[in-house]
């Protein structure tokens, strides 16, 4: 059947007026073969391998963008969790590897490279310890390196020792990057149930179950979904709203599937997954909060928000599932505060609080994301917030994450400007009645009964 002019114009308007884009093409690369007892030799091998494998990533993405007329916003790289290399290296500081990744990212022209990471949900190994201890300095002396640490899982429970240590690392990173409004913490995510094929930063890693190289694609399109919801008759019932979102998600996902296949083919690597996440940007209208408001919630964060978000998240998955057989990554609406103009407005209006964002985490991915909090927030409080987010993920068999930024020298009501896709963040109030004693107990929250599924 021929494509109709209406369908052609619809696609063009999606791109030109509603911010339809492919948010990221992420090349996953195994760097396991770069292991070496000498950290500098290891770093050299990492640099050589990444620059050689990703040499054509940016030019291929640009060609595809031009030929298909769909913008590809970011080109990124994810590597094997560096803690694995850290277990072979004989020195405590892994910063040279982070610097090598940073140089490689600059050389091939990608804006972020993820994988300065460790998985410590059950225990912290020697390599993990080296990596974690290196994070505050590594994120201060690099620009493009992203770090993530998995501190909990449904199968292992919550490693509270790791949660508390990582909360300290967040505070240290806040200090080491104080001159950039603690932006280092914006490049550091703590996960429960981390996935191995996430194309989105800052949490992208190339999992140990992956092949040597793979292309993963993250789709976007909150602006398109918002426009569709806003164009519905005000009397449309919720089934009709879900149906409209589903149909739109299908189209967005198909674009992602096509781009993923084509990029993988041209790079000569296998196609991994399409991540069906609605990722907002600070651009006006490209907002998950505004979709919720278009559905009929007065301001994002008000009563009804969790319901609207649940409907949205589910409808996106249903439409997307028809669009690709390779769903993966996080695949859930993102609710990052600083990157979403509607979320920022909601915080400033007093409609959206940390507690409501935590509740929203239960029905979407990925939790408390890009949230600026006062610089003097104690590590124990951060640990308790992180453990709450992990508890939701652990019990509900889903990925949850926290990317909290205690901004040095800032207090509630201040704003910080990160620019570009990271937007600006209002400093949010933190509940003063934290479970300090709880997190200091340490040990592990045992895996829940629901994990015993064999």
């Amino acid at each position: 059947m021929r494509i109709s002019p209406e369908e052609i114009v619809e696609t063009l308007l999606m791109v030109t007026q509603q911010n339809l884009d492919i948010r990221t093409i992420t090349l996953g690369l195994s760097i396991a073969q770069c292991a070496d007892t000498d950290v500098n030799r290891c770093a050299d091998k990492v640099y050589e391998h990444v620059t050689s494998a990703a040499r054509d990533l940016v030019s291929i993405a640009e060609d595809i963008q031009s030929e298909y007329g769909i913008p590809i916003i970011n080109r990124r790289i994810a590597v094997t969790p560096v803690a694995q290399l850290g277990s072979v290296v004989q020195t405590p500081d892994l910063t040279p590897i982070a610097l090598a990744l940073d140089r490689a990212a600059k050389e091939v022209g990608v804006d972020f490279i993820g994988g300065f990471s460790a998985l410590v949900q059950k225990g912290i190994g020697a390599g993990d310890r080296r990596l974690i201890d290196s994070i505050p300095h590594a994120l201060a002396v690099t620009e493009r390196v992203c770090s993530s640490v998995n501190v909990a899982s449904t199968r292992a429970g919550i490693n509270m020792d790791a949660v508390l240590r990582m909360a300290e690392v967040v505070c240290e990173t806040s200090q080491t990057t104080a001159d950039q409004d603690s932006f280092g913490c914006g490049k550091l995510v703590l996960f429960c149930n981390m996935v191995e094929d996430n194309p989105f930063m800052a949490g992208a890693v190339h999992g140990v179950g992956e092949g040597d190289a793979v292309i993963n694609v993250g789709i976007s399109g909150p602006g398109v979904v918002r426009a569709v919801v806003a164009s519905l008759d005000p009397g449309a019932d919720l089934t009709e709203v879900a149906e409209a979102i589903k149909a739109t998600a299908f189209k967005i996902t198909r674009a992602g599937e096509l781009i993923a296949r084509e990029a993988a083919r041209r790079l000569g690597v296998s196609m991994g997954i399409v991540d069906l996440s609605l990722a907002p940007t600070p651009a006006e209208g490209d907002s998950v909060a505004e979709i919720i408001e278009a559905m009929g919630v007065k301001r994002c964060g008000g009563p009804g928000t969790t319901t609207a978000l649940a409907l949205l998240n589910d409808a996106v998955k249903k439409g997307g599932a028809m669009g690709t057989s390779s769903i993966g990554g996080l695949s859930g609406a993102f609710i990052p505060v600083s990157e979403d103009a509607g979320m920022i407005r909601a915080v400033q209006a007093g409609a959206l609080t940390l507690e409501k964002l935590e509740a929203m985490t239960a029905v979407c991915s990925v939790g408390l994301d890009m949230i600026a909090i006062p610089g003097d927030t104690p590590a124990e409080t951060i640990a308790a917030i992180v453990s709450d987010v992990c508890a939701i993920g652990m019990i509900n068999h889903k990925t949850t994450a926290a990317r909290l930024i205690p901004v040095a020298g800032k207090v509630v009501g201040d704003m910080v400007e990160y620019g570009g896709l990271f937007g600006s963040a209002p400093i949010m109030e933190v509940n003063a009645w934290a479970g300090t004693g709880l997190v200091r107990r340490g040990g592990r929250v045992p895996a829940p009964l629901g994990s015993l599924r064999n």
Partner: protein
Amino acid sequence: MQTPAILSVLGEDRVGIVASISRVLAENGANIEDIRQTIIGGIFSMTMLVTVNEDHTPFDQLQTNLTAAGTEMNVQVTLQREDVFRYMHRI
């Protein structure tokens, strides 16, 4: 290599759009398979299904030539591979 593509022109209607675009296509070895014109939401819209002969003119070069012709007539000309529409609008 023969590449199916969709060419779309959006903007204000005026004399010579079809002639000008067709001339660029012919000069670059691209064949018009189908052509439709309509007004959508007050915008003049012309869409063409064309086959680009990439051995004659590479895809990106044809895009550049068409964009130049569009700029002269103050209309937006877009050339995209056809599969993106097929993927997005057909199961």
